[in-house]
């Protein structure tokens, strides 16, 4: 009888001792103590508890590297140059690296653990990136699958160039257990320093877009991190050839509004915007109104598959075909031209090839490929 009770107690006791031993060993072996992160040759130095991943350790000290996946190692955005030897590139990093990046020891900050003092280099501009706590002031249905979020950041301010983006922090919801982040171009002009406006198109299966379209309400608190990105208007007199579709409208809305507000109206601007049918087209009235007020601004909307009910009298066909026609026949090649693109990689590639075929060199084509 005693054996029946004592045996399980002995086994449980041994298991508990082993568990405690493992725990103590873990604390000893994996205790890296306080380690130092030196950024940009000492412009900033952080003292952090070792063992965490670099992306999180930096974020914990208000230094935010771009990350479109929130640190899951699936976007390849959170790159930085590591000047200290921290071991070889991991298999999870190699797909995202070019040869030049490998040569200077570029690493994905979400994949590397900081176990000793390290020195890193990041673009100085990232020191200006902030995490902003905001409140959704307004949600507008722009089309059947695009919503516009107008987020107030209260007394906080955001300084950015038109064309840049923020990362929207998506909290856990439904089956989504962890926090994640997604990048969205700002559609508000830089003059509106207390707000962040973004366009969010519903992507089936998309974690952030589903959250925005089904969970988020006016008055809800949200977090955004930014500004990020180097997509912006070049300070030249060249004719701007701008091309977008869907939520790729966002950075251009910001750029045009900024140019109009600051009276930068001396250069020709052509804006090509593609949608499939009338129900996918938006901001037509606003952009046509802008066209009336700004004689060098030309808006060319096009529908690829217009329906009869659309009563569409504008351009039809894929935006690349319309662009090609205008570059051949309507847009002067006597002055310099620059291409500005916002859309997915497929759209960017197709537009780049139309632009280069029409004499615009690759180095004068600027793009933001995660609308």
């Amino acid at each position: 009888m005693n054996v029946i009770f004592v045996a399980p107690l002995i086994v449980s006791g041994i298991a508990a001792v082993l568990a405690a031993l493992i725990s103590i060993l873990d604390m000893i072996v994996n205790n890296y103590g306080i380690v130092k992160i030196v950024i940009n040759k000492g412009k900033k130095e952080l003292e952090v508890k070792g063992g965490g991943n670099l992306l999180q350790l930096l974020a914990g000290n208000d230094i935010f590297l771009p990350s479109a996946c929130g640190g899951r190692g699936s976007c390849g955005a959170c790159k930085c140059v590591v000047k200290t030897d921290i071991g070889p590139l991991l298999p999870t990093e190699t797909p995202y690296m070019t040869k030049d990046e490998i040569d200077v020891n570029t690493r994905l900050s979400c994949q590397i653990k900081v176990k000793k003092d390290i020195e890193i280099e990041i673009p100085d501009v990232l020191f200006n990136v902030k995490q902003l706590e905001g409140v959704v002031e307004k949600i507008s249905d722009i089309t059947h699958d695009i919503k516009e979020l107008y987020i107030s950041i209260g007394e906080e301010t955001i300084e950015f160039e038109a064309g840049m983006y923020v990362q929207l922090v998506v909290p856990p919801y439904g089956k989504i257990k962890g926090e994640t982040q997604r990048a969205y171009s700002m559609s508000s002009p830089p003059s509106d320093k207390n707000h962040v406006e973004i366009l969010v198109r519903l992507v089936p299966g998309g974690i952030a877009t589903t959250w925005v379209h089904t969970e988020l309400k006016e008055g809800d608190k949200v977090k955004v991190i930014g500004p990020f990105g180097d997509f912006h208007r070049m300070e030249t007199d060249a004719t701007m050839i701008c091309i977008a579709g869907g939520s790729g409208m966002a950075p251009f809305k910001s750029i045009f509004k900024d140019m109009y507000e600051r009276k930068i109206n001396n250069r020709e601007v052509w804006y090509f915007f593609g949608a499939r049918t009338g129900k996918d087209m938006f901001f037509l009235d606003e952009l046509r109104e802008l066209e009336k007020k700004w004689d060098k601004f030309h808006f060319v909307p096009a529908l690829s598959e217009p329906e009869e009910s659309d009563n569409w009298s504008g351009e039809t066909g894929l935006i690349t075909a319309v662009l090609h026609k205008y570059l051949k026949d309507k847009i002067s090649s006597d002055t310099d031209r620059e291409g500005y693109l916002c859309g997915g990689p497929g759209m960017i590639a197709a537009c780049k090839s139309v632009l280069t075929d029409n004499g615009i060199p690759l180095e004068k084509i600027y793009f933001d490929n995660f609308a």
Partner: protein
Amino acid sequence: MKMTPAFKKAQGNMAPGVITAGGFLGDDKRDIKDIITEDEERMEYFSLDYETVCDKLEYLLEKGGKGLGEFTTVDDTWLVRTLEARGHLPCPFEDGIHRKITCEAVNLKNNRKILFSTISIHLLREHHFHEGKGSEFRLDPESLKKVLEI
């Protein structure tokens, strides 16, 4: 089919938050071997073979790309939209990485819809894994039959 250590690892990788925030299993609590076995039987029931289905999915994904991010009509039969996001996703079976390209295909005759990605095609072709029930990217054999018309 047995739940080998590799299958157990893959099942762990399919949980929400490991590779994708939503995971690959939906509400399905079964072992992936059971999911695969049942779906293989249903593919046979609907007279579908994996190569033909995967070739058709690849065809739609490629044709959808011509819409440059917008829906486009393919062969007067499907309305297709292909979207690409930045980055790659590793296969939960740990045999490669795939670009994040998703495709939505609607059969215009019966309005049935499927949602799939480059990794879905790989999972189907190489592992006969259709994703768990309740997963947004599940490729149910009956839906494949009705949408793809094969």
